Structures are given as structure tokens and as C-alpha cells.
């Protein structure tokens, strides 16, 4: 009976959209670096920590007013405590483990043992509690207990807590961890040298030097000397001691150079990877961005054409090193990865962002694979793909492409037009290439409160601005109307398609895109 109620409760939680969305919200805000509101939360916590540390440090010497203490004890610490509990809560899901175990038992016809999933969840929770970040979180709460002054040293853990919210420190540690072996070797060598030099100076100077009274003093001297700091509070007085001192100083310089070179090489090796990670993080914060598969001729021309006009962030994924270098040289955002790799695409955020994917390589097979892969990962992605011929075009549409380009087909048709109908060619070429001197097609979306809203086309002065009204994408009719009737009234959501010189279009948009004034 009890177990049944527990299982029912687990199902209740699993089916409660309110519970799930609440948990998902807290999980995102605490753990998901792609979540757009996480940065606000992180900034808030950083500010709170800095305030708290300032209060704790300030009150070491000077008593602070009651309300400041109250703020630190009750507000800041309560927030830390809530955060600690929330992290504990979102770490894993008890209900999913119970449901999974219950269904498995039911399927196999064996009795359901509640302790098994509970143990699994508890094990996870305990592992979390013992993890360094969770321990830091816990210790950061302790300074609140004022009667025991020694607990105030735990203010340091509030400083460590900052690590949670600052990515650059994380990255620094990550980079250094790649050179763990070299750094440990160096550390071992340094300890060996300090030990040897300390013992040697102790042997030679203990009886002659008033400042060296124990082995600790000589080890301290060796440490200060090898670090090339040299306070001067302990210095050798015997010739033997001075020789050791010289050797230790020389080794210290060598060690420092070694340490610097390890850190520099770690960063130079990881530099592009760090940049690439940052690039993906930046993109994931955008509402809309573009991924370009491959840096071939087509992608290059696309990026070079109207490069200021690309309205949102983009990244090129290219596996070939030479092409990656060329893209970098051309000044484009590029990541050296295979655009058809599931793993790399998975790192892009498709929950909160709209993604446009361009598959523009010369190979139809690659384009089809990239299209299928992108469609597999992102349901609502817009894919523009390149095809060699009509048959490939059909295949690409089947694979899920939203638009398929056939470069040779379009240019062939234009070439034929250039020969057969030269005047018309100018129009088509202008529409396709958007030359500065020729007219452009432009779209003007109608939005609430704009001057054009609720206006009949007959009342819009296209002629004075040397603008041609070509058509209207009508929201009410759900289709494009070519050369619409002048009686048509513009509604919110309609899009006007107009044609004219760039300057005329900009002027026209300036006038008519403005919000309605009372007189209008």
C-alpha cells in the first residue's frame, strides 16, 4: 500500500507539467550555460558574494551597523542556502528513477523494491554533496555563525564560490589541467630542490647562522630563494651556504621559465579551442544565428557579398585545415570541425534559438548528409542547400531542406536571358545581384501603430518616392498577391514588396515605418 502510494506519487510528479517546468527552470538557471537568463542569475550571485565578502572583511576591524549584519546573515546567507538546496534538488530526479525501476520490474514480472531506486538517487545526491563545488557552497554558508569567530575564515569559500559563476576561471583551470603531467613533474622537481637545498643549508649553517634554528627555517629559506623573491630575513653566512644559494637561485630562474613556458604553451595550444567554445556560447545566446557547413567557394562568396548585411551571428564549420586558415585570414568566424558531425551540431542551442543552416559544398552527397544530420538534431531549423541538378534538388527537399539552390541552373537561365532579352536581363540581374546603381526589391512589414497600418494602398504615395508597388504578402489571405488592388487596406502582419533605388527605398521606409502620430 505504502509502495503503491509512493509509485503513484512518482507518477504524479512525472505527469505534472507545473512541477517539471519548475524543475527545468531551476536546472536551466543553475546549470545550463546556454540558458539566456543564467547570466543574469550569475551576475546577481557575483554581486551578492562581493558584497558579503566586503562586509565580512570590513567588520574584522570596524563594527558594522545592525542592518548590514542583518543583510549578510539573513538575506545573503538565506539566498546561498536556497541555492544550495536547489542545486541538491535538481542534481537528479527521484521520480524518473522510481518510475523507470517500477516499469522495468512490471515488465519483467518481478517484485518492485523501492529501496533500489531510492538508493541510486541517494547515492547520486551524496556524491553531489561531497563534490568540491558543493562542499564550497556549504562552507560558504558557515561564516554566518558569528559566535564562533574561527568560522569566519570560511569567508574564503565565498571567494571560491565565485568560481562557479565566472567562466574564464573555469577555462583557465581547464587549460592548465591539460598540462597536468608537466606541472606535476615541475612541482615534484621544485619540492625536490627545496628539500635538498633546505637540508644542505641546515647542515652547513645551523651552527653558524643565528637565523636558522630549525629545518623549517632552512626549508623556508630555500622556498623563498628558489621563487626568486628573496626576502632577505634569512641569508647564508658561510661560503658553502652562499654557493648553495647561488645554485638555488639559478635553478629558481630555470623553474620559473619552465613554468611560464608550460602555461604559455597550454594556452597557445588551446587558444583556438577556447575561442571556438566562446564562439558557440555567444551564438547560443542569440535568438537567431546561422551555421555554414564548409568553407568552399560558394560560402566564401556568400560571406564576402554584403558582409555587413548579414543580420545575425554566424559560424563556419570546416574540417580542412587549409580552408580554416583561409577563412580566418578572410576574417570570418570559423571552427575547425566537421559540419556533418552530430557531436558538434549538438552543441548548438536549438531550444531557444532559431537556426539557419547552409549546406553549400560542391558535393551533393555531403550536402544531403549535412541536411539530414541538421534536420535530425534540430526540428525547426531552416536549411538552405546547394544542388547540382534537378534530381539532387528533389533529394534535398526529401532530406528536409527548406530551400534548394541550383547555382548553374540560375546562371544558365540568366545567360540565356542576356542573349535573348537583353533589357529584361538587366532587371533579373539587378534583382539577383543587388547592384548599387540598380533598383532593389525590398520588403516592408506592416506593424501595429505604424503609419501604414489600416491605410488603403491608394492613399500611399509610392509615385513621389519613385517606388513601384510590386505585391503584398497578405496575412489575411495567406498568400502573395501580385500587383494588389489599390482598395486593399494594409493590416498588421502584411508585408509590402516594393522596388526602387536604395536611396528611395530608405527614404520611403523612413517616412512610412514611423509610428502613427495623433494627426495620422
Amino acid at each position, binding site marked *: 500500500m505504502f509502495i503503491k502510494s509512493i509509485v503513484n506519487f512518482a507518477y504524479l510528479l512525472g505527469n505534472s507539467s507545473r512541477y517539471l517546468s519548475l524543475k527545468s527552470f531551476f536546472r536551466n538557471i543553475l546549470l545550463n550555460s546556454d540558458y539566456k537568463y543564467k547570466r543574469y542569475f550569475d551576475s546577481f550571485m557575483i554581486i551578492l558574494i562581493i558584497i558579503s565578502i566586503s562586509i565580512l572583511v570590513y567588520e574584522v576591524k570596524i563594527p558594522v551597523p545592525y542592518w548590514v549584519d542583518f543583510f549578510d546573515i539573513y538575506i545573503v546567507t538565506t539566498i546561498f542556502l536556497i541555492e544550495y538546496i536547489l542545486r541538491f534538488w535538481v542534481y537528479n530526479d527521484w521520480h524518473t528513477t522510481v518510475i523507470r525501476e517500477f516499469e522495468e520490474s512490471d515488465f519483467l514480472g518481478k517484485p518492485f523494491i523501492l529501496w533500489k531506486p531510492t538508493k541510486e538517487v541517494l547515492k547520486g545526491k551524496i556524491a553531489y554533496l561531497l563534490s568540491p563545488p558543493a562542499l564550497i557552497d556549504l562552507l560558504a554558508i558557515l561564516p554566518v555563525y558569528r559566535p564562533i569567530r574561527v568560522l569566519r575564515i570560511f569567508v574564503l569559500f565565498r571567494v571560491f564560490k565565485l568560481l562557479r559563476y565566472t567562466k574564464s576561471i573555469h577555462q583557465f583551470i581547464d587549460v592548465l589541467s591539460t598540462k597536468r603531467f608537466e606541472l606535476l613533474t615541475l612541482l615534484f622537481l621544485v619540492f625536490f630542490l627545496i628539500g635538498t637545498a633546505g637540508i644542505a643549508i641546515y647542515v652547513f649553517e645551523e651552527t653558524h647562522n643565528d637565523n636558522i634554528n630549525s629545518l623549517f627555517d632552512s626549508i623556508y629559506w630555500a622556498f623563498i630563494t628558489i621563487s626568486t623573491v628573496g626576502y632577505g630575513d634569512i641569508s647564508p653566512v658561510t661560503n658553502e651556504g652562499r654557493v648553495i644559494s647561488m645554485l638555488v637561485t639559478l635553478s629558481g630562474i630555470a623553474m620559473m621559465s619552465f613554468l611560464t613556458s608550460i602555461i604559455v604553451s597550454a594556452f597557445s595550444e588551446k587558444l583556438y579551442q577556447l575561442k571556438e567554445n566562446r564562439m558557440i556560447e555567444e551564438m547560443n545566446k542569440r535568438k537567431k544565428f546561422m551555421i555554414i557547413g564548409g568553407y568552399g567557394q560558394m560560402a566564401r562568396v556568400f560571406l564576402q557579398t554584403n558582409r555587413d*548585411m548579414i*543580420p545575425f551571428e554566424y559560424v563556419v564549420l570546416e574540417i580542412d585545415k587549409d580552408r580554416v586558415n583561409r577563412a580566418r585570414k578572410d576574417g570570418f568566424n570559423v571552427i575547425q570541425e566537421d559540419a556533418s558531425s552530430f557531436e558538434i551540431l549538438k552543441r548548438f542551442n536549438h531550444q531557444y534559438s532559431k537556426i539557419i543552416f547552409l549546406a553549400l559544398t560542391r558535393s551533393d552527397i555531403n550536402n544531403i548528409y549535412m541536411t539530414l544530420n541538421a534536420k535530425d538534431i534540430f526540428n525547426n531549423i531552416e536549411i538552405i542547400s546547394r544542388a547540382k541538378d534537378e534530381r539532387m534538388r528533389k533529394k534535398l527537399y526529401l532530406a528536409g531542406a527548406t530551400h534548394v539552390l541550383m547555382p548553374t541552373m540560375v546562371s544558365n*537561365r540568366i545567360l540565356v536571358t542576356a542573349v535573348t532579352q537583353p533589357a*529584361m536581363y538587366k*532587371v533579373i540581374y539587378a534583382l*539577383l545581384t543587388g547592384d548599387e546603381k540598380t533598383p532593389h526589391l525590398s520588403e516592408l512589414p506592416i506593424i501595429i501603430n505604424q503609419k501604414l497600418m489600416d491605410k488603403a494602398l491608394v492613399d500611399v504615395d509610392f509615385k513621389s518616392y519613385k517606388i513601384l508597388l510590386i505585391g503584398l*504578402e497578405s496575412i489575411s489571405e495567406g498568400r502573395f498577391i501580385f500587383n494588389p488592388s489599390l482598395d486593399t487596406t494594409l493590416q498588421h502582419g502584411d508585408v509590402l514588396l516594393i522596388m526602387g533605388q536604395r536611396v528611395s527605398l530608405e527614404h520611403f521606409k523612413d517616412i512610412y515605418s514611423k509610428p502613427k502620430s495623433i494627426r495620422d
Partner: protein
Amino acid sequence: MNKKAFIFGYEEQSAFVAKELERDGFRLYIVVDNKISYEKALKDDYKNVFHIDITDDDMIESLNIEGSDYLICMMRDNHLNVFLTLSLHELFPNTVIVAMSNSLHATRKLKMAGATKVIDTYQVSANRIHNIIQHPVSTKLIDSLLSTEDELSLREIKIPQESFLDKIMVEDFNFRPHKIILIGMIDRRLSDKFEFITRTEEKNRLDIGDTMVCLGYNSDLNNFEEYIRKRREERV
């Protein structure tokens, strides 16, 4: 007599162009520099196919190219295409040379070499991608203009002899009842060049022999062409 077009190079792309031009009534001369293309052109039933050394000016001259002919440079090799364009421009300076380019650098060189029109495959496609992303409605229109299946199209319409449109100012004629849009025209009174209606500073006048470029549905364009054949008195 049919217009003549010389197509230099016979690959997949040029085969398409040849087919389209033949359908438009052009007399075609295919000039190639290799045996495979030569045989392919013969296999596709073209009668006038020449296998010559493209780099030899004497051989090009022997093709009897005239000033009114169209020269279409579609060699697969960009370098050869530029060289050929330059040779043709030098030998026949007043002839229309249309060249196909498959690289940005080649486009500039083809223009410098004297091509009248250069169609840059990559540039056209790149702009199409920009259009798809930024101007989805315009893209629909352009797609229907490029498609041979769609009803909406652009058409060059020459004002016929004795048409009632003669000497009528553009702003005095209402195209709207005919459900078409005048995009631009060759107003011979002002210049021999095509000008967009949104660009002209002087007022355009419709005269016999002028060419209008109109946008509309095929049926409306047909009706309009029929309509402007009428004489002034007939219209009354």
C-alpha cells in the same frame, strides 16, 4: 533571318544554354577545343560544330563571325575563358560577348578582357542566399520569374508600328487596368540603353520601336501585347 550565336565550350552548362537558345530560334555554332565535347555536341544533333584550337586567332577568324552575332564564352577552364574573351574582343570589338564565370577573380578579369556581360555563378547564388534569408517575399517573386513553369514573368514588349501608345507619356498611361507593372524601358528618344522606371530623371515617353519591360501574369502580358497593337482610331 535567324540570329546567330557562337557557343564556345560544350559542357553540361553550355549544353543547357544551347538547348534554350535553339528553342528561342537562334542558329547555333558550337566551338570546342577537345574531341569529347565535339562528339557530345554532334551526339546532341547540332550541325555546326567546330573543333579548333581556341588560342589560334586565325582559326577563330575562319568562323566568319559577324558584328550582329552573339558570342558566348563558356569554357570550363577560367584562364582559357578569359583568354578567349580577350581574343574575341580584339577580333570583333563591336560584337556582344557574354561570358560565364565560376570565380570572383575570373569575373573581374572577364570584364577587363571586354565581355559585354558576365554571369557570375557564385555571385548570383550568394545573392540568392541573402535574399532567401533576408527577403523571403522577394525570393518568392524572383523564383517565380526564374521558373519556366510559373505564370508570373517579365517580358520585353516592343511598341509596334501604328500603336496608339505612340507619343504617350508614361505617367499618362495607366498600366493598372491591364494588371501589369512597367519596370523599365528603352526610351530611344533619350538613350539606347535600358533604364529602370524608378531611376529615370526625365519623363519617359512611349514611342514606336521603344522596348518596355513589364512584369505580370503571362495571360495579362499576352492581352497587353495584343491591346497595344491597336491603332488610335481602333481604340476609340
